[in-house]
């Protein structure tokens, strides 16, 4: 994982709007990707994953999009709620190797 300093990128959205959090991953051989949510004082919590043989996967209110051509991953949250406020991390993995985490994005939901 990387750490990029004390100030995480921040995304502010109005409650009820859709959120899009982006992540550029580093290894074109990565075949598994995860989005995590981390609330203050807690460990990261799994949200949704996707394997490299897919380009879209949907969960409850969340969608992950994978663009392998440009090594880009995004997390879309529909109808963002105050409880969605957290830091979101993407992670990439090659089977049998370690996970590599992105720097994280802080999502702030405005009332």
């Amino acid at each position, binding site marked *: *994982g*990387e*750490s*990029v*300093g*004390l*100030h*995480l990128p921040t995304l502010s959205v109005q409650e009820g709007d859709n959120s899009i959090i982006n992540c550029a991953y580093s290894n074109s051989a990565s075949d*598994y990707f*995860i989005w*995590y949510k981390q609330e203050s004082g*807690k*460990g*990261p*919590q*799994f949200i949704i*994953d996707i394997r490299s043989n897919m380009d879209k996967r949907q969960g409850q209110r969340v969608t992950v999009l994978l663009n392998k051509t440009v090594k880009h991953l995004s997390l879309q949250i529909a109808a963002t709620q105050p409880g969605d406020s957290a830091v979101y*991390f993407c*992670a990439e*993995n090659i*089977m*049998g*190797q*370690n*996970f*590599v*985490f*992105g*720097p*994280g994005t802080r999502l702030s939901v405005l009332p």
Partner: protein
Amino acid sequence: GAGVSQSPSNKVTEKGKDVELRCDPISGHTALYWYRQSLGQGLEFLIYFQGNSAPDKSGLPSDRFSAERTGGSVSTLTIQRTQQEDSAVYLCASSSAGDTQYFGPGTRLTVL
């Protein structure tokens, strides 16, 4: 158990002392990971155990850091001669090979 557990939840120590942090992974998970997270920052990989293979220690910041995984289950992360810059939250995660990682709540280490 239901999830990954870590102990202690908080540890305050004096500079120069040794500390041991414990991780109990989810039963049956063959992979175990240790990460460090400083305040407001991302996850820094420390070490990765997979089954009986030699661990990937490439993330350990210095030779003061070491980890063991006994019997393919419980893991202990040891930091010798702690320094103030070691203060952070230490997170443990486990997974089945090629599958999602599940994180524990972390141990907050404060070195005075």
